[in-house]
């Protein structure tokens, strides 16, 4: 899931103050699960901004341009009457809404990361979309998302008793977790392997050949 967090309402209010009418787009997938851009949150914001609200809808998954188009078409008149779109979804959804509507897009959420949901409100970052997944080599622990330094060759001197120096020794050291997982799987030979520097020319743009 793409994990998002609500911007403070004062920030949104400041961002939309120069617009007469704003159309609100929510997200029926990730932001609904995060309780940041689902039905309840969209209605809540609509109520707060009152007359400024030109209309609202929760798009099943606004990051999918086809679904966005399908779900916004019935609301065309309301969208057209708005000066701006307030996007209660991740950055991908917000840009998809901007492309489709051609309107100014006001982000109502901050996108945090690709994460695992433990329970409502408890999320853990698990993926950095690095374009070259290394999980097989690291005991299923992502070193980019979970090591504060993104190191590829084992724990640094900043780990103490398996905890990371970043964040006051509260978070687990990714490489100690990886070591233990590989040990559990009888694959310590993989831990020992030298991992060469990451090829940072492998960008998503280069891989997909798209803008």
């Amino acid at each position: 899931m793409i994990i998002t967090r609500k911007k403070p309402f004062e920030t949104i209010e400041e961002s939309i103050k120069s617009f007469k009418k704003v159309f609100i787009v929510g997200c029926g997938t990730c932001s609904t699960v995060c309780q940041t851009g689902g039905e309840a949150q969209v209605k809540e914001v609509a109520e707060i901004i009152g007359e400024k609200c030109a209309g609202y809808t929760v798009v099943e998954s606004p990051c999918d341009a086809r679904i966005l188009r399908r779900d916004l078409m019935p609301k065309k008149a309301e969208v057209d009457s708005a000066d701006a779109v307030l996007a209660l979804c991740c950055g991908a959804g917000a840009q998809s809404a901007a492309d489709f509507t051609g309107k100014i897009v006001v982000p109502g959420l901050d996108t945090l990361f690709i994460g695992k949901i433990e329970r409502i409100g408890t999320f853990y970052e698990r993926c950095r979309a690095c374009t070259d997944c290394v999980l097989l080599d690291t005991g299923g622990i992502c070193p980019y998302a979970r090591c504060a330094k993104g190191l590829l060759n084992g724990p640094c001197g900043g780990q103490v008793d398996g905890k990371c120096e970043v964040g006051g020794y509260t978070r687990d050291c990714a490489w100690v977790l990886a070591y233990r997982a590989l040990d559990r799987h009888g694959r310590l030979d993989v831990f020992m392997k030298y991992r060469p520097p990451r090829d940072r020319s492998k960008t998503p743009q280069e891989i997909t050949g798209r803008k």
Partner: protein
Amino acid sequence: MGRIFSRLMSELMAGRFVYTGELSPGKSTRLEDLISSATLLKRHVVACNVTDNPRARANLSSLAAAVAVQERAGVEVICQMTARDRNRLALTSDLLGASALGIRNVLVMSGDHPSLGDNPSAMPVYDLDSTQMVSLVRAMVDNGTDLARNRIEGEVKLHVGVTGNPNAVPLEAEVAKLGRKAAVGAEFIQTQAVFGIEVVERFLDAVGKLELPVLVGIMPCRSFRTADYILRNIPGVKISQDYLEALKRTEDIQDKTLKEEKVDEVNEEYFSRMIRELRRTSRVAGVHIMGVNYDRIVGRLVERIGGMKIDLDNE
């Protein structure tokens, strides 16, 4: 490997017990203090580490300070370089600069995370990690290329050391990491500060098979407060209770000179005993004394044990 470019490496290869010291440039443009510290240390150590923005504080560059120290104080340096602030282009560039300016030893490490430092909103670079930095140095020295196999004009004359933490828990993961650093061509290990002989023995047992010279780090503390600060702020350092209590007893002494003298005695007593024991275990290649802002202790310690000079001259 095989060629020897530095005094440090030549002593290590000859199997002579060595002492190294440490200099830590500050957020300053004044080199005088560093030079005078280096001049003090010169008689007692084979080489001096020059730190690279420890605790992620933006200080005077380790490379600039290292060159100045080597030229003006005439003491060989071990230039520390972290992966924190530079990508592989900048690291390659600084390593070329180091070699060109006569630096012959570097110690590579990932470096404390910027969030712990004095510019916490800075970007953590870590384009390479410390192991990959070792392979960068190896490529430059052995193959005359950078990591992308671009050719370098002229020879790169550098020895590369790595850090190890005998206090690490789990030690197995640390040892495995050191094994990988050795496999890619690290030439010596300098350890995080240790305060007890048992922890060193355990570490040496684990890394012995790597056959790399190990310089054990010790950190004599200038006061009980320093020790307490280190205990609370430097990751993974464990200070022995005996030592802490001995330092604590000096806290009540009112007279400043008397107090300093007493602290020096505590350090001399504690660490000279430790170094003697370390020397008896022939596997230790030397001791790295981190007496930052406490230069006088280095001379006192080394002299008390019989001195480096005596050692060198007798060989």
